[in-house]
């Protein structure tokens, strides 16, 4: 039986893997902070849907595989945000047990851990009940979603109560085991000073942070004080300077970004005053600070953590 299921998913996956994703490899974008893609071959679908004792796996009634060409077919306008976060493909499997409990598993693959975190963080709400699954997950009645490396896994069930929850949990754990992903957060997430940081409100904005095309790939954290700090990794200090300059220009702010160590003040007509610092291969910044001294003080804490964590590499 297992062999048949494996054959089924392998064949369908191979056949439906478009030619433009040969071997399932997708280059990591600049916004990924240089992270390598971790997922395996795209045809390895069978391994993504594990055999779970007491459960029968089958394809969904509709299509079971989606790419960027037809993602809208299943999630309509919501597809835009997934595409902006490096969506690669989606596979769907459905489990059922003998009591009639159903569990649907949707595995969204993204081009990097940063992008998977990006879409997860934009759909997450700090009020959810978080569970120990993958890098992080949350569970509600009939819904279990979790982040797992380059994958964003959405599990749902029509069955309410303990049976549905237990089923989702068991299958979720099995899916996590088959995905073989590290449970760690993208590294820039660790840079943010912990004191006063709002838990589960960090995010990754892959495109157009603050509404500017230039600001791609921003990790953002919010603080009780109302500040927002961000880190945008780049490959070189030159790229960081170019990034700061492009943002300042787009915001119509005349600033000198040639001195790498100084605090740059951008008077953004849409977002207020944004303070920037160029820190080797990172552009760091803060919004919401009442004055320059405050910004200096807060950013120095961020800078210290980046230096500390970088020295451990």
């Amino acid at each position, binding site marked *: 039986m297992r062999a048949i299921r494996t054959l089924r998913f392998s*064949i*369908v996956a*191979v*056949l*439906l893997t*478009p*030619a*433009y994703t040969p071997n399932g490899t997708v280059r990591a974008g600049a916004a990924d902070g240089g992270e390598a893609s971790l997922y395996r071959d795209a045809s390895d679908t069978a391994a993504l849907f594990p055999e779970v004792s007491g459960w029968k796996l089958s*394809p*969904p009634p509709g*299509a*079971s595989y*989606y*790419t*960027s*060409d*037809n993602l*809208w*077919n299943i*999630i*309509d*306008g*919501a597809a*835009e*945000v997934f*595409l*902006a976060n490096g969506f690669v493909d989606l596979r769907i499997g459905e489990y059922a047990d003998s009591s009639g409990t159903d569990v649907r598993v949707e595995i969204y693959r993204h081009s990097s851990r940063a992008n998977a975190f990006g879409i997860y963080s*934009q*759909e*997450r*709400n*700090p*009020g*959810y009940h978080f569970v120990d699954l993958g890098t992080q997950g949350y569970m*509600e*009645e*009939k*819904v279990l*979603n979790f982040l797992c490396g380059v994958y964003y896994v959405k599990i749902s069930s029509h069955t*309410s109560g303990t049976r549905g929850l237990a089923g989702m949990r068991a299958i979720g754990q099995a899916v996590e085991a088959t995905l073989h992903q590290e449970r760690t957060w993208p590294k820039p997430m660790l840079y943010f000073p912990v004191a006063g940081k709002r838990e589960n*409100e960090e*995010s990754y904005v892959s*495109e*157009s*942070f*603050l*509404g*500017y095309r230039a600001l791609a790939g921003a990790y*953002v954290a*919010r603080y009780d004080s*109302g500040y*927002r700090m961000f880190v945008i990794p780049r490959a070189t200090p030159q790229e960081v300077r170019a990034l700061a300059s492009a943002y300042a220009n*787009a915001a119509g702010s005349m600033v000198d970004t040639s001195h790498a160590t100084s605090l740059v003040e951008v008077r953004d007509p*849409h*977002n*207020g*005053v944004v303070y920037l610092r160029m820190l080797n291969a990172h552009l760091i910044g803060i*919004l*919401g*600070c009442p004055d320059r001294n405050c910004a200096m003080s807060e950013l120095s804490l961020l800078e210290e953590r980046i230096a500390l964590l970088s020295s451990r590499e």
Partner: protein
Amino acid sequence: MGTVDRRGFLKTSAIGASAAVLSSSGVFSSAPVAGIAGRWMRQQKKEKKLITRWLGKTGIELPVVSMGVMRADNPELVRTALAAGMRHLDTAHGYMEGNNESMLGEVLKDYPRDSFVISTKVPPMDGKSFLETLDVSLRRLRMDHVDILYLHGPSDVSAVSDPGILDALRKAKSSGKARHLGVSTHRNEPEFIRAAVLTGVYEVVLTSVNFRQDHYAEVRKAMAEAVAAGLGIIGMKTMAGGFYDRDRTKPVNCKAALKWVLQDPNLTTTIPGMTTFEMLKENASVNEDITLTDEEKASLAFAPPGGGLYCQGCGHCDGACPRHLPIPEIMRAYMYTYGYGAPRSARSLLTGRSLTADPCAGCPSCTATCPKGFEIRERIRDVSRLVEVPEEFLS
């Protein structure tokens, strides 16, 4: 408690936190409420010559460009859009697991309710759940009603006239939770538009419409029929995906694409997604001038070939294959597989023409060409493998 209620409770209970999360950026988030509303009022008083159109018989008049709210991470974009004269904001229950509606609720609480027109969408489900889901959306939006409630993208046209759904929609309207009813469609648009007209329930159709649609003439015809029947039409996907290529490196001239669809007076407004202020400014300018310049026309006319999945069956490739392969049918099978996610239909089409897997094997070079730039041989190789898969394995 069902899923909807539970989610709704969680969302509502999280409002204090999420409101702060979503209210965003320094300067404006700390501004007094009256300040923001006042800013809006001042903007509205400015003399603007916006091009507006009526939305069917709803009594709603809208500028031709509205805002599809795609992301929740920058509420300033919404405020700026309203300040620029846009009135209509489009969201959906499912966007960003509800964070999209929550963000709008946080932003719009500072504006007079009659200063904007908001729509949300609920997917097909049983009538009771449909209405519960609408209630969750209203709580997130912090409103007692939406201006347009859409049935969200039904996959099957039969859902458009499903009695249970129509009953739920009517109840939503009679209870005052929705001022007007609509349906959204991303596929087989003419069929869905005509089905909506026949029900006599829907007042608005939100449809895909763009310059790259091979069946645009039929979409336009269906829109005209709907307008004649008193419905209003709102356009989406007007940028045709925004890029010509899958790697998102060849952008569409979005301003030109937007103007292009607005040449049809039956289209009341459009809801392009806007994620940058630059994009917003450009789109807002279309509200004052929809005239296509020669340069814009050229940018659309000379769009890079090769994108898209849709074979129009023009026949250009027919007879060009030394092995007499039915290329138009194979291209259609490719579209079924990758465009519609319907490989079983594709397989049926291929086996009906007695095709084998990789029928091009051994052929030194492809002599067939496609005016749309399809890589014919590559597509044949990809899709023909379906014939080797037992039908029961395909959806």
